[in-house]
């Protein structure tokens, strides 16, 4: 399941929903991305996420499908927020469940790496010296590319 929303989410509830009454699941892996209070040696007062409504959902569904094709998963959950967030706020939750730990862990890692470069979000960090756009990192691109060639 994928969700794109402005409001926060409850990690405990979301993770439980994926496993409760599903007795074949042996492993659940999850990743949570949060707003940090520092960037480039500057104190950040807010992070604002802009996205491309419609395309965002399409891309997340594609990434979800890709994970399901590569690994034997029971379930995939991606929740991505947009709007104005504060330091310490959750930005994204990725979670996967599988009979086996390796599938759960690798697919979760894959999902967050692909989100970094393939989910149409753009971030502005606000600090005392003004607003600045978060630049795409070369190593994000590299880590996403790894999954294109790697045998899983």
């Amino acid at each position, binding site marked *: 399941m994928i969700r794109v929303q402005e409001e926060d989410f409850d990690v405990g509830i979301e993770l439980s929903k994926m496993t409760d009454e599903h007795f074949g699941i042996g492993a659940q892996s999850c990743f949570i991305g949060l707003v940090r209070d520092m960037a480039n040696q500057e104190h950040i007062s807010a992070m604002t996420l802009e996205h*491309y409504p419609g*395309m965002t959902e399409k*891309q997340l569904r594609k990434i979800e499908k890709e994970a399901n094709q590569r690994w034997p998963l029971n379930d995939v959950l991606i929740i991505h927020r947009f709007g104005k967030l504060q330091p310490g706020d959750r930005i994204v939750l990725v979670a996967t469940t599988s009979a086996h730990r390796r599938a759960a862990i690798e697919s979760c890692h894959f999902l*967050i790496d692909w989100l970094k470069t393939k989910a*149409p979000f753009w971030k502005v960090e606000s600090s005392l010296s003004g607003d600045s756009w*978060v630049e795409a990192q070369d190593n994000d691109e590299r880590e996403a590319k790894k999954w294109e060639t790697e045998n899983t």
Partner: protein
Amino acid sequence: MQLLYFGWVRARIGKVQETVNLPTHIKDVSALIKWLKKRGGGYHEAFQNLNLIRVAINQEITTLDARVDPDDEVALFPPMTGG
């Protein structure tokens, strides 16, 4: 043609979206960008470095040499920073 802008492309141009009537000689994204850039100001600034421009046609990521049609939704933006 429906044009959408995101990230600092949107900020520099100062618009989220606009509808344009394309001259018939414009067949691909590169030509579209060149044409927009001629408007100068924010457009010129937004498209200065094409290495940093990404494009989606009808919400599918594609490349700058992709063909465009008058009824396409074309989005221009910097590299995505999701997650």
